[in-house]
Every structure is written in C-alpha cells, then in structure tokens.
C-alpha cells in the first residue's frame, strides 16, 4: 500500500487548524444574535454543511461527465466518494436546520419548499448508492452511476434557488428574503467574518475527506483485484 502523501499530511493538519479556528470563532468571536440567542450559532455550520453537500454533488456530476468522456475508472471512484461525503453533510444540514427551527419556527419540521427540495436531493443521492449496490458489472455500474449523478444534479440548483423562487419561510443569506421569511437577521461584521471563515474551513474539509475517500476506494479496488486473481 502506498504511504500517505506528504501533501495529504499537511492538508490534514491545515484542515484541522482551520476547523478548530472556525469552532473558536463560532463560540467566542461571533456575537450572540439579539433575538434568537445562541441557537443562531448553528447557522454557521448549517450553511457550511449545505455548501459542502452541494459542492460534493457538483463534483460527482463533473466526475460523471469526465468518466463518460474518458472511461477512466478513477473518475467513477471520485464521483462515488463525492456523493458519500455529500450525503453526510446534507444530513447535517437538514438535521441542524430542524434543531434551529424548533425554537424559531416553533416546529421541528414543515414542508416548506427549501426543506422539501433539500430532503428530495438527499434521497436522490441515497438512491444513487442503492443503484450502485444493485449492479454487479463494474463498467455498467460506473456508467449508470455517472449518468445518475449528472441527472441527479438537477436537484442541487433546484434546492439552492427554492428559497428564492418559491413562497417560503426559510431565510436566505445572499439576496432578499421573501416577505414571510421567519428567523432572518442582519449579519454584523463579526458574524459575516465567522460565516465566511466557516465556509472556507468546510471547503478544505471537503477536499481533505474526498482525498481520503478516494484513497480508500483505491484500496478497495486493490483488494478486489487480488481476490479475483486468486480465484482464477
């Protein structure tokens, strides 16, 4: 097995430092929001998780396109890895949203357009993993996975723009809130800095996790190849 690349070692360290700093900023640098209180601090990692999820699904769609053009299996692995990470972070995004909503909207859940589209997006990519499980032939699995990841990506802009296009109570960070938005707030400079830094930290978390997941996938392939070789 290849040793861990030096760049990945540095990336692990750098990402850990960024994450710890982001946590520090959320709890000790950003001020307490005047109306919502401390639960508003969930917002920083809630949005950052959503960002990582959408970035992952975009990476999966791009990997799918490149795989279909080149036929290189490495891109299939990159797509699978990105989807797995995306599912984890969109789950965090949805669950933290529900926790925030309980004291602010007085309910854990409502079938608001943003919440509904985010849930559909999560389910679409969960189905991607199930689809792959059901196909034995690796080439066919990779081809189907690539096409599915490209088509499934339609759910990402739909989720992003749902709070801007439809009547919703979900507040938005960039742009003008809908008249019925509940729980919106004006960011102070410290809040904005914490928010941007959280986005940066989570972007590095995504890159770092993707690299690790791809390495794990390569190891899986190596084990499978060795098993096949021994069966022959």
């Amino acid at each position, binding site marked *: 097995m290849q040793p861990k690349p030096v760049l990945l070692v540095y990336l692990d360290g750098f990402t850990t430092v960024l994450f710890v700093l982001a946590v520090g900023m959320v709890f000790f640098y950003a001020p307490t929001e005047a*109306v919502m209180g401390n639960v508003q601090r969930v917002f920083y990692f809630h949005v950052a998780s959503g960002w990582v999820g959408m970035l992952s699904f975009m990476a999966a769609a791009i990997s799918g396109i490149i795989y279909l053009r080149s036929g290189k299996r490495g891109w299939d692995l990159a797509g699978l890895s990105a989807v797995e990470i995306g599912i*984890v972070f969109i789950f965090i995004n949805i669950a933290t949203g529900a926790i925030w909503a309980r004291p602010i909207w007085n309910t854990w859940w409502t079938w608001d357009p943003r919440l509904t589209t985010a849930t559909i997006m999560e389910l679409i990519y969960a189905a991607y993993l199930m689809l792959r499980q059901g196909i034995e032939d690796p080439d066919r699995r990779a081809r189907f996975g690539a096409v599915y990841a490209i088509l499934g990506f339609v759910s990402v802009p739909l989720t992003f723009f749902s709070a801007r296009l439809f009547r919703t109570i979900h507040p938005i960070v960039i742009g003008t809130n809908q008249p019925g938005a509940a729980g919106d707030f004006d960011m102070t400079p410290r809040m904005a800095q914490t928010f941007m830094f959280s986005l940066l930290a989570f972007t590095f978390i995504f890159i770092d996790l993707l690299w690790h997941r791809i390495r794990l996938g390569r190891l899986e392939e190596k084990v499978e190849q060795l098993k096949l070789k021994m069966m022959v």
Partner: protein
Amino acid sequence: MNPMFFQQAPAETTSYMIFGYALIFGVMFIYLFSLAVRRRNLLATLAMLQELEKQA
C-alpha cells in the same frame, strides 16, 4: 408577527445550540471513524490475501 418581536433580551436557546453542535461533531466523528475502520479492515484483508498468494 414573530412572538420574539417584543422581547428585551435574546431568547434562551442555548440547549438547542448544544444539541446542534453535538449532532454536527457526532456525525462528523462517526463518518471519520467509519473511514478509519473500513481502511483498517481492508488493510487486514489485503495482508491476508498477500500472505495466501505467497503460499500458493
């Protein structure tokens, strides 16, 4: 109208913040742990297969 409109001080929502961050850290830890376990298991399988290949 938002019921928090007339309040004088921020709402006491610390328990929800703790719940939220416990979930964030918990899920991230579980995912990292799953990556580590899968890797460890694969390395063990690989070592076993390589040993069998040598013997064959």
